[in-house]
Structures are given as C-alpha cells and as structure tokens.
C-alpha cells in the first residue's frame, strides 16, 4: 500500500468495475487509464437518475423536464468552468471529445468565413505542433495545411523525451499562426513548459492551444493561469462518460472565430438565405448536445474535486516514483520519457528487448488480468522518433495502487520467461 492520507481503498470501492473478476478467475488490474478511465458510481448514478427522472431536450423546452434538463446541462458547464478556473462559464464549449475540440479550432484557420486576421491562413504561413503529439493534435493541422497551403512544422523531442526548445525563436516566427502542443504527453508522461512557448507565441502574435487531455484529469489545471488561448480535454479520461469533451477558449478569441458546425441551437435567427449566430458557447454547440453526458461529466468533476486534485497529483506522483523504480528492475526494460518523476505524470511506456509489445500486453492480460495498452498509443510519429514501431504503456490514476505495479512487474518477469 502506498501513502498515509490518500485512502485509495475507499476510492476503489466507488469504482465497481475494479472489483470485477475476469474470465478464468483473474482479478482486474487496470493500468490503462491514459486510454480511458473507469467511472465511479457517483457518475453512473447521476446519469441513470437523470435518464429515469429528468430527461428531455435542453434549451428549447419550457416544460418542467425541459427546465430540469437545461439546469442540469448548464449546471455541468458551471462545474467544468470552476474546475479549470475559466474566467467565464461561456468560455466552456461542450464537444463530443477532445478530438472534436481540436478540430473545431483547426477548422477556424483558413476558413473563408474567418474575418479575424488571426485565423486567415495563406500559403507559407506556419502551424506549429510537436513530435510528441497525439494523432488528434496532428491530423487536424495536416488537414488545415493541405487545405490552405500553410506549412506544418514541429518541435523535436529530445532523447530523454522532453520538448526540444532550442529552436524556439526560429520555429515560432512571424509566419506562425498557431502553436498547438500537448500539455502532458500520453506516451512519455512529460509535462511541457507552457510559459516559455507562450511568451514567444505572444511576441509574434500567434494563437496558442494546449491539448490538455492528459493533464486536466491528473493535476490541477487553471486555464487563466496558463494564459493560452485554447485548452482541449475529454470527459472519458477524467472519470466522466464517453461522448463528451471540452473546448475552453478565451472569450475574445472564441467570439472572433467563424462558426464550425451549423444547425439547431447555435443560431440566433435563421432565414432561408442567411443566419445570425448565438453568442458563445452555444455558437459552437450545434444540435442536441450530449445532455446526459454533461450531467455525468459534472458529477465526475464533483467527484474529482471531492477527492482533491492536489491529492490526486500527489498520489500519482508517488505511484510514478514507485513504478519507475520497480520497472528499472526488469532486465533490459527501457522506459520512454523522463527517468524521474519530476515534470512527468504517471504514464509509463516501455519496451522489452526481443518481445513485441503485442505479446507483452497479451500475456499480461491473459495470465494476470493486467490491462495495459500496446501499440503506438495514437502517437506514431513519436515512436518513429525513438525508432520503435510500438511500446507497452501502463498508465495510472487515482484508483491505482503500488500492489498493482508489483503485479505488473511480476507479469513482465513472466513474459520474459515465456519468451526467454
């Protein structure tokens, strides 16, 4: 067992799936929260209660159920806004996932309907990302570049898995329209230095976005303190439901953007030949939103807050220290990313000599019920950078224990025996 104050056993009781027995009598050791987290009963019950007693469409309905659903939906927005320190609730846009949030912003760039100079893109203009991005923060920008003739550039990654900022002043230059980088890497665990990059982006007038899919669930994130223009994250990685993500954007910047999806609820008034649009956040929420999912996300935020984001970070930090030390004992095992727990989260990706990650994952699962992720974790370019096709990733969350790390290490020894 780990530490003193953080009662991980009590937390585990909130997550019914963690005590599930897998076929063959295996206990579940869930080390795949970087992929998607499990959900506490508080979230599941909030969703069920809403569906059974309060559900209807939001915004448009005057009746009792309509008001209850609207209050629950907009109440979830208040909760999310408070959770990330948003200066205004109107700056919180609900999307279907982090990927949609990233695409929503990407589609503003080079959009013929963009009136604000910051979103106009001409051939030769530049978009800057990094080599450690998730595909969801790469492909949208490739598509913008292909649509507009802009040039996609990227920060390299150092051998120890940090952002290589040595070329900062050249990479962020007068042609740069947007810098979009990951806050915490989903492979390396690396937490990136935002302030330094932002300062340079501000110098050249570029917009800056953070993919915070892996930071918001795991550490206190204050968007105002970060000072960037956009932050994207996703419900299912923060003990919330699937089907909902969040784009936070500074009011002024969101207001300067053209609409993205058109349809019901994002309009002010519609004529056959033109329309005017609703104020933010609704301008970016076309159609019936993920109502029950927002209710679930609101409950997730309440849950995380009640446990305490500082405590969650501390717990994961301890697990990371423990895990890095434990993995170091496995012969030949090579950890990707920082070798110490400083400036990194609880995402432990690694390779084993002579054993393909698919085989590692399969045996861990089959023999011990240990769920890890294997492959490139939607970060293929980063794997190419390290010269490997794939890796095995154990990723931790508030409900994980040092016992589970011990089980992982035992499992890896077994893998080596099988392939020895």
């Amino acid at each position, binding site marked *: 067992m780990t530490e003193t104050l953080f009662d991980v056993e009590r937390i585990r009781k909130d997550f019914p799936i963690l005590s599930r027995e897998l076929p063959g009598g295996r206990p579940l050791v869930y080390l795949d929260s970087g992929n998607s987290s499990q959900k506490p009963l508080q979230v599941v019950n909030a969703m069920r209660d809403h569906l059974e007693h309060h559900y209807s469409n939001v915004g448009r309905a005057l009746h009792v159920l309509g008001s209850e659903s609207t209050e629950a939906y907009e109440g979830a927005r208040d909760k999310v806004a408070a959770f990330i320190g948003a200066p205004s609730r109107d700056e919180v846009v609900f999307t279907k996932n982090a990927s949609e949030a990233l695409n929503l912003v990407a589609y503003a760039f080079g959009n013929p309907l963009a009136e604000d100079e910051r979103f106009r893109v001409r051939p030769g203009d530049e978009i800057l990302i990094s080599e450690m991005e998730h595909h969801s923060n790469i492909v949208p920008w490739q598509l913008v570049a292909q649509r507009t003739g802009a040039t996609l550039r990227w920060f390299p990654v150092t051998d120890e898995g940090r952002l290589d900022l040595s070329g900062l002043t050249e990479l962020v230059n007068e042609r740069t329209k947007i810098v979009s980088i990951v806050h915490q890497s989903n492979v390396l665990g690396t937490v990136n230095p935002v302030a330094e990059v932002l300062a340079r982006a501000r110098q050249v007038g570029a917009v800056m976005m953070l993919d915070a899919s892996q930071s918001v669930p795991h550490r206190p994130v204050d968007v105002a303190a970060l000072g960037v223009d956009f932050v994207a994250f996703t419900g299912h990685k923060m003990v919330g439901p699937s089907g909902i993500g969040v784009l936070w954007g500074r009011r002024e910047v969101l207001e300067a953007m053209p609409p993205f999806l058109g349809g019901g609820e994002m309009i002010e008034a519609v004529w056959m030949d033109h329309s005017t649009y609703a104020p933010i956040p609704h301008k970016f929420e076309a159609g019936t939103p993920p109502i029950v999912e927002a209710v679930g996300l609101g409950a997730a935020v309440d849950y995380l807050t009640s446990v305490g984001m500082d405590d969650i970070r501390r717990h994961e930090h301890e697990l990371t220290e423990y895990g890095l030390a434990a993995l170091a004992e496995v012969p030949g095992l090579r950890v990707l990313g920082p070798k110490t727990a400083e400036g990194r989260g609880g995402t432990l990706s690694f390779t084993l000599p002579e054993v393909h990650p698919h085989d590692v994952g399969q*045996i861990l699962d089959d023999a011990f019920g240990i769920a890890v992720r294997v492959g490139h974790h939607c970060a293929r370019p980063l794997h190419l950078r390290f010269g490997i*096709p794939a890796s095995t990733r154990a990723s931790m969350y508030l409900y994980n224990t040092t016992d589970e790390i011990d089980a992982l290490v035992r499992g890896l020894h077994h893998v080596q025996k099988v392939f020895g």
Partner: protein
Amino acid sequence: MIAESLYQELILEHYKHPQGRGLREPYDAEVHHVNPTCGDEVTMRVRLGDGGKVLDVSYDGQGCSISQAAASVLHELATGSTVGDSLAVVDEFTRLMQGRGQVEPDEDVLGDAVAFAGVAKYPARVKCALLAWMAFKDAVARSSA
C-alpha cells in the same frame, strides 16, 4: 492459464527459430504488406515452377510472435507444395482465423498451422496471424498474372 491457448509451444518455437526467413533470389513476385495499426510488416517473395509448383517462399519482417511465427509456418507448408494446394491451406487458415473461435479446424489441411486456432478468439490478433498469409496469396496472384 488462458494464455496457453494462444501461445502454443509450436508458435513460440517458430517465433524463436523462424524457418526459411530471409529474402532469396530468384523470385517471381515480391510484395510488402503492413498492418498499420500495430506496425507489423512483412516482405514476401515467391518463386513458382512448372506445374504450379511453389519452389520457394522467402520473407522478412518484424512484428509480434504471432505474425512472425505465422510466416514461418507458412514457409514450411507452402514450399514444395503446389499453388493449388497452398491456396487451399490459406483459405482454410483464413476461415479458421475469422471464425471467432467457433470454427472447427481441418487438421488434415492445416497441419502445424492448427496451432493458431486459439488466435481466432482474439479479434485484435487475427490480423497478425493473417499478415504473412495474405501477403503470400497476393504474391502468388502476381506471379501467376
């Protein structure tokens, strides 16, 4: 342990000691197949002779034990056989793999390849097992064309 149904001794043997690995000359067709979701890849050459005889199946690649062992087993079964017979094995193997664990394998046709039966229960791994076999089918089609 369930793992044993997937990691048969024979599969691990072939993985650790692959048969006929390495690209050889001469050949009639070479193909390169990739499983982009996991990065597994195989380069496959076939050399055919008179009467549809398969004179050589040579290959190289990287990937998990299943994909590598499958290539090795394929080499053993196809080399020295005929195009007709080997494609029949490919078909039976494909049927087994796509059967979600519900298909009774025909051991007479499959020979050693029957060791892969357990893979069929793991949809995510079926592609690994089939990679080399699909490449072979493709290469044969191109040689005969």
